[in-house]
């Protein structure tokens, strides 16, 4: 047994990948989310938890460039210059969302083209990013189908012929094939059977680590948060009531609402 193998020097990146400052979104009088600020660093996985209506999906839509916040800014450092995503032109933002970002929707139908083959769904993202060589596109698509555990002989089938779990895995392949730096996921395991969830979670865990992705995951399932995330933000009534390292927040919750959430979980 050799002790203390010199660990590889961990490069602590000097700059966050995403800086969120005082983001708020209102629906008339009602608060969607209010005054949310945080930094996300390359390779970090942030979970946003809270019950239905707590504002976590609203916040995700603001962060992901889908829904413009009424106040605040979202700064992305993917290239040479930091980019305020809501001050650039619509076209520029869309290009960013296609190339540097990925969004995994809760319902795979929202992220897939249901009338296009599985291979086409994955290949389309590559073509969006400029790939033109048909053979290579198909080869990459096939590789990705296998990485998400879809048999290669299903490449020409349409997503509507797939089970819910397979559709979700296909959506993940479609998002990750373009090698995004940052991925947003909204309840990625929602609506799936528990056994199917376990497989998907393990797959996500491995992919996120192997690709060194930064990700923001919205979930109401604390077990999912514990398995996939490094950090946690707990939301209630549109505001962040507690945040920190995932195991700190779940094992030693300080806010009344977090204590309520963690004590409400049934252990099997």
């Amino acid at each position, binding site marked *: *047994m050799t*002790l*203390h*193998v010199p*660990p*590889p020097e*961990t490069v*602590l990146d000097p700059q966050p990948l995403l800086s969120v400052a005082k983001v708020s979104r209102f629906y008339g009088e009602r608060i969607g989310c209010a005054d949310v600020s945080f930094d996300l*660093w390359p390779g*970090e996985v942030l979970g946003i938890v809270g019950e239905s209506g707590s504002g976590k999906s609203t916040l995700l839509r603001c962060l992901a460039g889908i829904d413009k916040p009424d106040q605040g800014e979202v700064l992305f450092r993917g290239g040479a210059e930091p980019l305020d995503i809501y001050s650039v032109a619509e076209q520029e933002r869309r290009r960013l969302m296609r190339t540097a970002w990925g969004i995994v929707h809760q319902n795979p139908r929202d992220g897939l083209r249901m009338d296009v083959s599985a291979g086409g769904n994955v290949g389309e993202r590559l073509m969006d990013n400029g790939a033109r060589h048909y053979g290579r596109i198909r080869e990459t698509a096939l590789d990705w189908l296998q990485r998400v555990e879809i048999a290669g002989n299903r490449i020409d089938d349409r997503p509507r012929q797939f089970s819910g779990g397979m559709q979700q895995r296909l959506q993940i392949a479609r998002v990750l094939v373009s090698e995004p730096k940052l991925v947003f996921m909204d309840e990625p395991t929602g609506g799936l059977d528990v056994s199917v969830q*376990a*497989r998907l*979670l*393990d797959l996500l*865990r491995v992919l996120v680590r192997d690709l060194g992705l930064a990700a923001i995951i919205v979930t109401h399932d604390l077990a999912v948060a514990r*398995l996939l995330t*490094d*950090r946690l933000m707990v939301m209630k009534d549109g505001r962040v009531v507690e945040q*920190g*390292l995932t*195991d*700190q927040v779940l*094992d*030693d919750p*300080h*806010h*009344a609402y977090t*204590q*309520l959430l963690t*004590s409400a979980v049934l252990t099997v």
Partner: protein
Amino acid sequence: MTTMIHVENVAKEFTLHNQGGVRLPVFGNVNFTVSAGEALVLAGASGAGKSSLLRILYGNYRPTSGSIAITHGGRPIDIVSAVPRTVLDIRRRTLGFVSQFLRVIPRVSALDIVRDPLLARGASPEEASERARTMLARLNLPQRLWDLAPATFSGGEQQRVNIARSFVDPSPIMLIDEPTASLDANNRNVVVKLIAEAREQGSAIVGIFHDEAVREAVATRYLDITDFRKAA
């Protein structure tokens, strides 16, 4: 000897907001240091806060006040005030936690669980697998189980997978909570030996052991935390 842990004025109190705001003081005015090559065994009656203290050292529980300097990459860093990614880096490279329980991940085999820390620290897959197999064999886990996910293993088998994972590449600091609770005498002795080896090679150990024989065999020093309880 190099100081690895320096605890200063740590206090912990739980506030249960949903049970009438009850405040549960655990301890206060905790001060001690642990050096490389030492094995500090925490003593005190059940409920005295030994596990809470261990979790605070790991950055899992947050103390109400005080600081904990962990020597990480040659310099002290306060794990209490460190940002999440720094805490994770400290855990990856410097600070290991050995609990009684294995957190089972669906579909991941025993061998993969054990070699994972080596891979995370940059070992080659071949070297990692080789060392993982050696460790599982030392802990007498039947070879037919190595490629299976431990969800269906017995408590003792899961515990040995967990210990193998922790000792396959001992961290400069090892925090150990009751590692031998459901092991037979033979495997208990293996664990005692693994702890001693890690310590002799320079790890700083802080542990809780209910079994008196294990405690005696492991400890180079005791810390009774009952006194800190009075200060809470």
